[in-house]
């Protein structure tokens, strides 16, 4: 942890060296991110609900997903851009050092500019919470925390799994992106509004639904099923195969660089 924090602060310092560039890039991220929830805002301008979900419920869903995703984009960027490490052959360098490899990959990159997205998704989250009439109980506070943490966990696991894919081949990364970005796009909305097949796929195979849909039902009082509140915890199980795969892939890895 100490090593990681040290590495992050170094990356951060190097980023803010070019101040003007940092500020404009930061601003541009705010604008880009705005266009994501602009869709939701303008559609709710014409309609008052989507399959029974109101604007702020959808925004909560949206904020939870982007909270986790942007968190990983900022702090786990090394894994997100793992293909670059492999293509450059820089990964070999990491293997030589007597530290945990995954940790080193995490330390290898950090993107403070994407903090713009992280902060904005927090703002959307707060706005949504203030406008929803929630009868707060301890269980609901826990539920919200579970949602936020599991959102980070799921994207972290997906990043690690797609990094494993790079051990085998660096071709066809677009398909990987399709599953990740496509699923992420859907998970911005309560996943129950989609057709059955999609719901099952994104509950069982890539469990976005467990992150924000089922707990949302409990959180907003649409359901009293305690299992829904605990759903995000199952997402943690996703970490096990992903880290196992990473270690296995690493053993099989043969270098590409020069």
């Amino acid at each position, binding site marked *: 942890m100490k090593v990681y924090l040290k590495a992050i602060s170094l990356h951060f310092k190097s980023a803010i060296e070019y101040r003007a560039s940092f500020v404009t890039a930061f601003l541009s991220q705010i*604008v880009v991110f705005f266009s994501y929830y602009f869709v939701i805002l*303008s559609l709710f301008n014409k309609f*008052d609900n989507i*399959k029974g979900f109101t604007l702020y419920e959808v925004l909560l869903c949206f904020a939870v997903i982007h909270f986790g995703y942007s968190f990983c984009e900022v702090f786990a960027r090394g894994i997100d851009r793992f293909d670059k490490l492999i293509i450059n052959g820089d990964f070999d360098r990491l293997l030589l050092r007597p530290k945990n490899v995954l940790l080193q990959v995490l330390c290898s990159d950090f993107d403070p500019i994407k903090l713009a997205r992280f902060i904005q998704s927090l703002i959307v989250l707060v706005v949504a919470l203030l406008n929803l009439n929630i009868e707060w109980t301890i269980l609901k506070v826990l539920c919200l925390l579970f949602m936020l943490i599991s959102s980070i966990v799921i994207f972290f696991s997906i990043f690690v799994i797609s990094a494993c894919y790079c051990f085998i081949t660096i071709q066809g990364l677009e398909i990987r992106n399709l599953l990740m970005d*496509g699923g992420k*796009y859907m998970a911005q909305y309560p996943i129950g509004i989609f057709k059955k097949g999609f719901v099952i796929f994104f509950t069982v195979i890539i469990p976005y639904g467990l992150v924000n849909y089922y707990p949302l039902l409990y959180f907003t009082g649409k359901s009293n099923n305690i299992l829904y509140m605990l759903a995000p915890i199952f997402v943690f199980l996703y970490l096990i195969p992903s880290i196992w795969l990473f270690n296995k892939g690493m053993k099989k890895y043969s270098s590409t660089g020069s």
Partner: protein
Amino acid sequence: MKFYLSYFKLRFISGLQYRFAAITGVATQFFFGIVIIMVYLAFYESGDANTPMSLTELISYLWLNQIFYSLLTLEYKDREIIEMIKKGDLAYELARPKNIYFMWYFKILGQRLSMVFLRSIPFIAIILFLPAPYRLSLPASIIHFILFIITISIGIFLMTSIVAMYNVITLKTMDEKGITNIFAAVADLFSGGFVPTPFFPNFLQTIGNFLPFKYVCDLPFRIYSGNVTIQDGLFGIIIQIIWTIILVSLGYILTKKLLKRVVVQGG
């Protein structure tokens, strides 16, 4: 002119090389198309207070958006020209006795057209035969279709002049991540790439009317689906042409001006 055309051809052919990217591109567009339509369907099924577009119009619009995405998107993607500026390869380009703005212009045009050429034909064949609500409908009428062909052709030139403008801005600021990106994001938003412009809040619709961006793809798509009357469509075409002329001349003049005091980077 012949020179620029061969430049265009070169880009077009090298773009055709990326067949695998084209296949995955089609898969991505298909998936996103379906998902986006499902979102709108869910909204439409939850009660139709005051929808500015009928469902068939909307679905045609959304599919066209996917088909022509790689052609007409105002997102900022082409890093090649930026790298050229930053690394100093710009000097080679300047050494050529040709106008650099038009070289950029035809490069972008060639790249974009080759992308859509590969992707769109199989894609259209699939989506025309999808089951009921998801299908791409035929154009509203034969006149709408002819107008659509005209507007989208002009739209391609308008798109190119906007994207070429990103290069001009980068030439000025030397920083592609910031201002150019903001400009591109705003352009993309107003072009209707995220939401069809009729769904915009009123004040944004008004602002959008004074900007060139919605004439790139929003106008052609709405003409195809019949959301715009023929009269309004013709009027839109005139505005499209005016904007294209303004932007090309502006880009040409600014490039000339900026190049006079350009400092070649790199060594």
